[in-house]
């Protein structure tokens, strides 16, 4: 027996409205029949029985119309019992346990609901279960991520700077370069854009500038002759260099990855080296105009020295700057050789040919040694180290400055990243695997390369979403590396062509005319005819109106005999580099933004 004895409830307009089923409302009837309390009040059964009905109905927690239905039926039952002469107490006692009754009624009524509702309920339960599981996984992943700590075991910055740091302090080329740059002041823009050459507008001003800064230029030549550059990268701008690049910001590099430290904007010295290379090139043209072969030779040799210095740090950017300097030196030599060959003595030409041939050990190739160190440094900052080459992603690593770059929601997604992204070993292995493919391709001469094969073997552009998610960044890194691809080969071809041009000039001096074919240069002046990098056959040679032309078949690999617009590539006489080409020098020029040095 419940102790609830509900008081009769008056049903005002709003209450009646609220308790009227929609169906009744649409029929214009304000029945209020969903109001159980009100209906009970009008049921003419004793309060204690009303209390039982209300209690049970309330405990069922059913929908309103279901409650009203149950309340109506229980009320009818009690009314029938009273009509048969049973006492309220007997009826109450015979009712049975209220809670159990409510529970059973609820279960039965819910079972009688529509299939659509039951399907929706099951779907909701399933979704709830899935959500619980996902939340559990997310929490476990979060704990896993937060409890890991990366271990910085190797200082790759030291390793990258090993060659630079080994240069004795009193013998660093950079010290002389710095001095020269400070003496040169603001270099006129035209001197570093390929627009300064004999006969060009402003050439008199150019020559005057170079004459006025003769001592600075001699400093540059002396610097370029030194064995080591000695410029240590990645540790901010030294105070002694600050006057060169006043616009480069001071940054606290503590905890930052090597990639951040060595971002191209932070290697302004490459821009400065590039500027000096251009000055040497223009000075060589000036020297040739004056008939000074010694000075022109010294300038071109200095350009090669700058190229060698740029390569002291084993990064791709440095390599590209070095190749650009080689190309610049070759172009400068080629111009002078074509227009004023008599400027050079035989011995000077021989020396230049030897320098070109011996450059970088004879082979110009892209090196990824530095990039591997950058990658390994990134990995050691991202992952734990279990001592066996494996480890898991860490929150500390993901929060490294520069990695997420303030991406919205990055922190929330970090645990998921921790689950999806490959472990340390798998991540590193994948990088090494793809890098090995790229290096193997670059080890082949241009005529044996197949860009489609490289894409196929690296899976470029065809990786699944899962693969890209498991190995983020790697695809982009490898793609960036592969873009370096043809540059070493093309610079090699320019270099080779210049060696042939020198041999042709020496032949002309000896025999009073040009050879009918390059074969006549062998073996006195050339050990062999260098290959055309595009097809592997010997470089092509023709006499056009009595003048020699060295050329390559070009991308189409078809010798069109230098017909207009035929795709053949003229290697000598050379044209000045066009600034519209992708040019790493432009990158390093940006690095000395505002300095003009």
């Amino acid at each position, binding site marked *: 027996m419940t102790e609830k004895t509900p008081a009769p409830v008056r049903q005002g307009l709003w209450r009646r409205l609220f308790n009227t089923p929609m169906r009744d409302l649409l029929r214009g009837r304000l029945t209020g029949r969903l109001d159980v309390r009100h209906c009970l009040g009008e049921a003419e059964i004793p309060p204690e029985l009303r209390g039982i009905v209300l209690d049970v109905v309330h405990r069922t927690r059913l929908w309103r119309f279901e409650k009203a239905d149950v309340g109506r039926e229980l009320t009818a039952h009690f009314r029938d019992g009273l009509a048969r002469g049973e006492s309220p107490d007997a009826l109450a006692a015979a009712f049975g346990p209220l809670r159990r009754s409510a529970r059973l009624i609820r279960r039965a009524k819910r079972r*009688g609901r529509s299939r659509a509702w039951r399907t929706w309920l099951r779907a909701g339960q399933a979704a709830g279960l899935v959500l619980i599981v996902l939340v559990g996984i997310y929490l476990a992943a979060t704990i896993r991520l937060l409890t890991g700590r990366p271990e910085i075991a190797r200082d790759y910055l030291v390793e990258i700077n090993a060659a630079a740091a080994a240069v004795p302090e009193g013998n660093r080329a950079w010290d002389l370069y710095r001095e020269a740059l400070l003496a040169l002041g603001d270099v006129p823009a035209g001197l570093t854009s390929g627009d300064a050459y004999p006969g060009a507008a402003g050439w008199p001003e150019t020559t005057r500038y170079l004459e006025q800064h003769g001592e600075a230029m001699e400093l540059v030549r002396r610097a370029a002759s030194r064995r080591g550059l000695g410029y240590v990268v990645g540790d901010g701008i030294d105070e002694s260099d600050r006057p060169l690049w006043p616009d480069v910001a001071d940054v606290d590099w503590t905890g930052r990855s090597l990639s951040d430290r060595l971002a191209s904007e932070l290697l302004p010295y490459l821009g400065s080296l590039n500027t000096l290379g251009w000055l040497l090139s223009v000075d060589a043209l000036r020297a040739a105009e004056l008939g000074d072969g010694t000075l022109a030779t010294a300038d071109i040799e200095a350009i090669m020295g700058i190229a060698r210095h740029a390569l002291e740090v084993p990064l791709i950017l440095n390599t590209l700057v070095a190749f650009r300097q080689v190309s610049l030196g070759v172009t400068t030599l080629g111009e002078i050789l074509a227009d004023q060959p008599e400027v050079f003595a035989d011995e000077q030409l021989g020396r230049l040919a030897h320098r070109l041939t011996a450059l970088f050990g004879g082979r110009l190739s892209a090196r990824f040694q530095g990039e591997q160190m950058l990658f390994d440094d990134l990995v050691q900052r991202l992952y734990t180290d279990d001592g066996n080459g494996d480890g898991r992603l860490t929150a500390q690593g993901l929060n490294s400055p520069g990695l997420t770059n303030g991406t919205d929601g990055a922190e929330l997604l970090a645990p998921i990243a921790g689950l999806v992204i490959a472990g340390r070993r798998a991540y590193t292995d994948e990088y090494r695997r793809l890098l090995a493919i790229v290096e193997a391709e670059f080890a082949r001469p241009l005529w044996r390369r197949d860009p489609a094969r490289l894409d196929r073997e690296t899976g470029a552009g065809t990786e699944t979403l899962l693969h890209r998610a498991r190995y983020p960044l790697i695809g982009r890194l490898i793609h960036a590396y592969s873009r370096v691809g043809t540059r070493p080969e093309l610079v090699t071809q320019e270099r080779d062509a210049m060696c042939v041009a020198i041999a042709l000039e020496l032949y002309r001096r000896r025999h009073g005319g040009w050879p009918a074919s390059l074969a006549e240069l062998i073996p006195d002046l050339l050990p062999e005819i260098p290959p055309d990098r595009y097809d592997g056959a010997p470089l092509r040679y023709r006499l056009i109106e009595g003048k020699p032309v060295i050329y390559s078949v070009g991308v189409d690999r078809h010798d069109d005999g230098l017909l207009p617009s035929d795709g053949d590539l003229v290697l000598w006489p050379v044209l000045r580099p066009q600034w519209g080409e992708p040019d790493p020098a432009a990158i390093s020029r940006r690095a000395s933004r505002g300095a003009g040095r």
Partner: protein
Amino acid sequence: MRVERELMRGAGPFAVMKLLRRREMYGYELVEALLVQTDGVLGMGQSTLYPMLYNLQANGYVTSRWCRADNGPERRYYALSRRGLQRLATETRQWQTLVNAIAALGVTAEPSNAAADAPA
């Protein structure tokens, strides 16, 4: 006599469907009929009957309708559906099989046999 709940579990719905086979009945009527016709053995309160009826209705064995008698109160009447008839026939066969099996063990409807099975 009080019968164990486990034994009662299947009997209640069967008994209700059996009663509804004759004619439609309302809740109080069913309670009375079960009490009287089974001599109290299958007597049950509202707390048991109505959940049972709702379950039978959810399974489609019974249907219901509200009806107001002439000058009388409204009541909900329950009737056996066609599906309920089929179900009743099935359960009837099952109960007959069960009763025959028990009878084959020597258990009859006579009360004196209960004493013969009582522990010594």
